[in-house]
């Protein structure tokens, strides 16, 4: 025991091949069964929704006049049944996954980029710039943002890209705060000081030393942003402001299903299950990542 301790504390010996923090975290993540189940579910859902044209011979807006509002049956060729307009729900649920998953992904990418930029610059610059930038975040935080997004959707059309950007713009605020907090503490660490002493320009320090070290919390928070973005999109769609026909998202399908749940419960059950499965998986994965990346939690 003492031998091992001295080895790790000293220079890495040949026998104790050093495990990088990332490998260590990856190992912990792999051992977390809930997180791995979540990751697998997400991969399966993503592959399914990308590969849906190969799986089903029908088009997304194809109407089956002889099967309007029929229940799920494998023999009938509609494993999830059809909706009130006679469209195949299996197909629509998977196509909806494309939109919902990409909304989640795109919004997280926007929020990560803006949030990391804002947070690191604000935290590293400090002083007046920091307080001005954070005050700006505070003000935006107090705005009833959802209302502005709704207004945006109503007035400037319901383009998919607009939805991506609008949701991303809402979600970057938390990210900026978290990143700024991390940056503040990193700024005082020895390796950053050393880099500064060697004359590295601030932009270099931020890019090479600060950002790689905030990736952990950012990754965790990003996995939690994805479900929020997906929920946000379904909320907009529920109000009739999201994705437009014939394209569809889980939110659209759920709101359609909710109106007919007494007569055609399957139209609600399948999309709601897919949405819930995705959100569960992302939450498990986020929790797993947090535990894996934070040594204190073990």
């Amino acid at each position: 025991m003492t031998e091992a301790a001295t080895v790790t504390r000293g220079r890495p010996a040949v026998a104790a091949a050093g495990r990088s923090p990332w490998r260590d975290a990856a190992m912990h993540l792999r051992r977390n069964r809930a997180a791995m189940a979540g990751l697998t579910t997400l991969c399966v859902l993503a592959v399914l929704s990308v590969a849906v044209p190969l799986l089903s011979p029908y088009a997304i807006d194809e109407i089956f006049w002889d099967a309007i509002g029929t229940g799920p049956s494998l023999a009938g060729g509609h494993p999830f049944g059809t909706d009130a307009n006679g469209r195949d729900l299996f197909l629509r649920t998977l196509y909806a996954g494309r939109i919902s998953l990409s909304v989640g992904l795109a919004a997280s990418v926007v929020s990560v980029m803006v949030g990391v930029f804002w947070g690191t610059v604000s935290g590293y610059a400090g002083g007046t710039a920091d307080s001005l930038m954070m005050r700006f975040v505070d003000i935006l935080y107090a705005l009833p943002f959802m209302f502005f997004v709704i207004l945006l959707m109503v007035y400037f059309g319901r383009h998919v890209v607009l939805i991506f950007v609008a949701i991303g713009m809402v979600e970057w605020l938390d990210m900026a705060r978290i990143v700024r907090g991390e940056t503040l503490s990193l700024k005082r660490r020895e390796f950053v000081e050393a880099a500064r002493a060697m004359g590295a320009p601030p932009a270099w320090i931020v890019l090479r030393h600060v950002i790689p070290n905030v990736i952990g919390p950012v990754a965790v928070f990003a996995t939690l942003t994805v479900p929020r973005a997906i929920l946000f999109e379904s909320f907009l769609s529920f109000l009739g402001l999201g994705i437009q026909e014939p394209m569809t998202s889980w939110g659209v399908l759920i709101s359609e299903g909710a109106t007919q749940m007494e007569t055609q419960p399957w139209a609600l059950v399948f999309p709601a299950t897919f949405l819930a499965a995705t959100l569960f998986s992302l939450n498990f994965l986020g929790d797993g990542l947090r535990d894996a990346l934070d040594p204190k939690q073990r």
Partner: protein
Amino acid sequence: MWTYLIRRLASAVPTLFIIIAIAFFMIRLAPGGPFDRERVVPPEISANLNRVYHLDEPLPRQFLRYLGGLARGDFGPSFKYRDFTVTELIAAGFPVSLKIGLLAMAAAVLLGVGLGAWAAQRRNSAADHMVMGLAMTGIAVPNFVVAPLLSLVIGVYLNLLPVGGLGDGGVRHLLLPVISLALPQVAYIARLSRGSMLEVLNADFIRTGRAKGLTERRVVFRHALKNALTPVVSYLGPATAAIVTGSVVIEQIFGIPGLGRYFVQGALNRDYTLVMGVVVTYGALIIALNLVVDLLYGVLDPRVRSRE
């Protein structure tokens, strides 16, 4: 404490102004107008209409006029509900929305903190896993799914509670909307308070408390809970915003004559003044609640006060 309060109050004014300005210009610069969906009238009449509503003035002038009206508590006339002013519509709808929102908020905090603390004390037991599983479900299932499901099961199949409308405004009519509105927030707060409770229960001062022979009840309620509440309090701001936006959907589903349902409909109708009225009211509400949260923060955490 007082300087802190005054500084926070002073910073609330510009925030509200920014909300009003963004909303005003966003609504006005958008294509379309309030009379687009009505009968086509001769140009003289529509010019007259525009003059009556001051729509022919330059935008900055209209903005100043609107601000002037607001300062006198006048939200202007509604473009769609011709017989009412926006002030009247808000006065009728806001108390209903406020009642449901506050009840949902109270339910969310009480249930959420209670469940979270309870689960934290029984870490990794079956009870803990059950509460956290429920919380995860509450977060993962959007409230526009929960609401129709609840009204179908409890309202229609079991016939226990009315499924819609406000009736006489009694508890029976409020129960389902409040539950559906509160559920996701209960889930969030339960997770938050479980996490912070776990952290606090491991702290040295809790061990000291137990060591000096305090009852477990006293340790939990007097020492642990108070310190574990800080993250919950800072979540109250976002929670308010979430409940306010959630009410837009819940009021639509349960047919409640609140403020939320005016928002989307008003925006689609280009009912400028009505939309502005809703934005201003909710904006002011969220700012006010954030202020309360900040003050609570100061009460719970003396370090916040001394820093000012």
